[in-house]
């Protein structure tokens, strides 16, 4: 019998594909079901945010950067405000710092809950998606109550926060914390020990710590690989040094570890929010910032631990009221870069699982 000819074929996964979380195109070279090579093509969501920011004043940049990573827009607000405050050496009032921490951690939870839902959806479990969204809704309601928007907050400003929390915020926030703590058992019960879930995730997309560091992977994927590196502890910003919380790490760096890592981070965030609510002082919510904000010339790189990794802004001021350069760096940018390394030689379904576990969000990549 003569040998039949086989050939590799290419599949365009995306730009519109249910599991690419936005518009990302993966050019897969496949040998049957097996992926030989992955090449990500990005830029379908490029809005030139950095260029736009160069033509805006500092306060105007914040609503623009809301769109940089819309799932955790609070972090985008925060990191820009942090950079600008470092440039102008502004001391932020105590109460504002507490409010910021509450908002940032709530937003981290919201982001992880969204991730929990979408990653389960990517692997075919539809119900966890709705459950994750259900609790995320509680958090978004809190945000809407405080700053008026559910997704693009424009809340954390240079020198403080935009508005004080309404009086009903604290009881509602405590209630939300309690509800999420209770519902965690549902999430864990649905997927944690589920044999199908474990089969799909364990030993898939194993990322060694060396690989993660080399590619600049940050955030939960990095910690899931066993590297204990969290900017909240390693390069403390705001008042994170006042709170008791752990930095969970995992050992194997596979998809399952990344999943567990995020669930544990939700629990840590819950702790931080409770502590911040307990310690919330009275006082000003905004430092004295001149109406026309003109930081002295200088450059600063501000970074923070976002739910998707390190969120950084390199801000250069030339002394005018507009920044000379706003270079943003999102966690997904590097986390997506490592995908071709992780997905090589696996099945197409594994690529989906890895993509989901890395928690890529495309606006952060394309900017």
């Amino acid at each position, binding site marked *: 019998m003569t040998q039949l000819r086989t050939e590799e074929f290419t599949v365009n996964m995306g730009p519109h594909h249910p599991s690419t979380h936005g518009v990302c195109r993966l050019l897969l070279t496949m040998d049957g079901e097996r992926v030989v090579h992955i090449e990500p093509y990005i830029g379908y969501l490029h809005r030139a945010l950095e260029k736009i920011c160069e033509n805006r004043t500092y306060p105007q940049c914040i609503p623009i950067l809301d769109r940089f990573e819309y799932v955790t827009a609070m972090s985008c607000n925060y990191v820009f405000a942090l950079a600008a405050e470092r440039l102008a050496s502004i001391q932020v009032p105590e109460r504002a710092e507490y409010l910021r921490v509450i908002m940032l951690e709530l937003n981290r939870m919201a982001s992880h809950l969204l991730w929990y839902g979408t990653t389960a959806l990517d692997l075919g479990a539809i*119900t966890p998606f709705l459950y994750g969204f259900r609790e995320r809704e509680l958090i978004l309601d809190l945000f809407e109550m405080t700053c008026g928007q559910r997704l693009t907050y*424009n809340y954390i400003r240079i020198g403080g926060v935009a508005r004080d929390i309404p009086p009903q915020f604290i009881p509602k926030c405590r209630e939300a914390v309690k509800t999420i703590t209770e519902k965690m058992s549902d999430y864990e019960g649905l997927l944690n*020990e589920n044999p199908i879930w474990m089969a799909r995730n364990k030993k898939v997309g194993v990322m060694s710590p060396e690989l993660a560091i080399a590619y600049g992977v940050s955030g939960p994927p990095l910690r899931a690989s066993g590297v204990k590196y969290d900017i909240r502890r390693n390069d403390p910003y705001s008042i994170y040094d006042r709170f008791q919380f752990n930095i969970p790490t995992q050992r194997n760096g596979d998809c399952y570890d990344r999943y567990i890592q995020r669930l544990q981070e939700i629990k840590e965030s819950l702790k931080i929010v409770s502590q911040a609510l307990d310690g919330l002082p009275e006082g000003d919510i905004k430092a004295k910032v001149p109406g026309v904000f003109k930081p002295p010339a200088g450059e600063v790189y501000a970074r923070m631990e976002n739910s998707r990794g390190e969120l950084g802004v390199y801000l250069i001021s030339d002394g005018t009221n507009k920044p000379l350069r706003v270079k943003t760096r999102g966690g997904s940018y590097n986390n997506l870069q490592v995908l071709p390394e992780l997905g090589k030689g696996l099945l197409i379904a594994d690529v989906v699982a890895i993509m989901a576990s890395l928690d890529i969000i495309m606006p952060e990549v394309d900017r």
Partner: protein
Amino acid sequence: MGLLKDIKNLLIGMKITGKHLGRHAITIQYPEEKWTMPERSRGIVVLLSDKETGELNCTACMLCARACPTGAIIIDAPRDEVTKKRTLKGFIVDNGLCCFCGLCEEACNFCAIKMTPKYEFSTINKDDLTWDVKKLQEVGRDVDYIDTRKKKTAPAPKPAAATPTGDAPIPTPVANPGEEKKEG
């Protein structure tokens, strides 16, 4: 033993979904039922009118137009050559450009522009999203607001005391624009 454990865990999953089967839906049927938007919700931009006279509060100071990061606000207010005062002729908000950031509301010192919790303004024609001063005033007629302008005649009520929503005692929107006013 592993098999039994797997089956147990599969059953736990079924138990959780089964448990939810009997619960009430948490979603609402949108056009019939509507969510009450929070007081601070940032929806449609409107122009506010004076509660007594019914005239626009806007003084055409251009602060909102300058604060807008997307250039959605276009104010036509030619400056009088003699008195150096601006008179409001046209005020256009392009809702297609508006990013609902609320900076205009914060910039305003005259309680003239506000983001309301209203949100239903979809149209089938893109041009209908550009609202002129009439439409903006019309939509803003029934919007309740705290008048923080300094009245010369009547003694000004304390803004914090007049807060109908029981907001926290620091009315931030006035703190910052006040400074802007000095410089501008």
